């Protein structure tokens, strides 16, 4: 149980049985009056945002969120399927919930799925993922005009800037936190 004085940016609370995250927070206390806690909240399921003002006597339940290790299986239209490795139970998330992580989803990739009372809300992928280059223009030696990088397309359809020596069929490592090329992977 939280009280109003525990409220801060990033805190996850439960209101009317739905999980919310506080995206903005401010303490106000007009004219010797009672303290108020003005919050912007985001519904973690629907993504809808709203403002709400709480008093110091208000209390809140913690939003009970779980992280579970799961394996990416396949995508079917806008649905992305994952499997719990222990129970073999399958869940799916829609494209909006997966977000940028879809750029790194290759078969059998192990991800963390965020669940709220068994409902999946989002995923987080490993910090580093190795992906195969499926399309790249050949390196024109002596080409100094095009600069130090060139665009390539990876097996997930993700387009990324890489050094000019990277060729089709090679495997490269991407930092998923920045979305940028890190290094070439041998083998």
């Amino acid at each position, binding site marked *: 149980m939280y009280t109003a004085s525990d409220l801060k940016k990033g805190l996850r609370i439960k209101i009317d049985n739905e999980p919310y995250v506080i995206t903005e927070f401010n303490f106000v206390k007009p*004219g010797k009056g009672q303290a108020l806690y003005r919050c912007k909240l985001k519904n973690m399921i629907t993504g809808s945002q709203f403002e709400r003002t709480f008093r110091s006597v208000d209390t809140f339940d913690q939003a009970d969120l779980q992280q579970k290790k799961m394996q990416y299986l396949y995508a079917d239209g806008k649905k992305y399927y994952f499997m719990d490795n222990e129970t073999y139970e399958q869940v799916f998330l829609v494209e909006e919930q997966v977000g940028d992580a879809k750029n790194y989803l290759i078969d059998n990739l192990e991800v963390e799925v965020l669940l709220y009372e068994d409902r999946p809300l989002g995923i987080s992928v490993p910090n580093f993922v190795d992906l195969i280059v499926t399309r790249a223009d050949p390196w024109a030696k002596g080409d100094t005009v095009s600069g130090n990088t060139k665009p390539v397309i990876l097996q997930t359809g993700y387009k990324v800037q890489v050094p000019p020596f990277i060729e089709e069929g090679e495997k490269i490592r991407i930092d998923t936190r920045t979305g940028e090329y890190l290094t070439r992977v041998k083998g």
Partner: protein
Amino acid sequence: MEEQRQLANRRDTLIKRARIIQAIREFFFNQGYLEVETPYRIPTPAAEAHIDAVCSGSWFLHTSPELCMKRILAANYQKIFQICKCFREGERGDQHLPEFTLLEWYQQGTDYNHLMRDCENLILFIADKMDWGDIISFKGKQISLPKPWDKLSVKGAFEKYCPCLLSEVLENKCFEEMLVTHIEHHLGRNRPLFLYDYPISLASFARAKKGDPTVAERFELYIGGMEIANGFSELVDVEEQKRRFEKDQQYRRSRGKTIYPDPKRFLDALTHMPEAGGIALGIDRLVMFFTDSPTIDDVVTFTPETL
């Protein structure tokens, strides 16, 4: 180390802060005020419904110097001012620090109208001393300082900006919610504004208005939507003051808050206190205004989080 870098970046603001405080002292010295100091650590703070004191052993750190300042007035000092640190438990936000700097001034034989003139003159004096002109940029707005400033009664503010009537708001005990949601951001947008004549139920130390006992002679100064000062014609009726303390104590008791002992010596002194006007002005916020700083963190050397 990040804190040290940010502290170094606040140099210009801290220089301005020091100069503003110097100008405040000059303003009051020029008018024959006596600067006084009163103890920070006191046996009992003023019982206010929504202000909690920080404990210090079996005593408390003062939440404002109000009680001591009035005892000095009652001993027949005519014009006094103080710049001091005050402490309020649990107050932390973009405009709040649990330890902050307050300016208070009191003058015998005056009332809240006189204090409003003082506010105008003080802030214009500072702007002039600093050579900042009489238009100050704050939060993307140009605030024009030349007199006279705007005045709006609390009742008028609710009629103008709030979807419900003040009487309904008081009945439903949601005065503060309505004020911050619908009204405050409109106040003092183009020039400073005095929000005045507060409902009598929202006054701890202000006397009832002559001719209208439903309101108190109390005002708040707003600049750019930010509350800067709270002043009033002082209540000098001991019996009425005791009743208000009792009401605030009852509220505190019902909420399980700390009950403060009665400030007996203050109440004794109040019987000798002449009519007076008294006001508290937040120096940190005044510096925020003059330096166009978005948060109170930007105008102090350290916040509790950086110690």
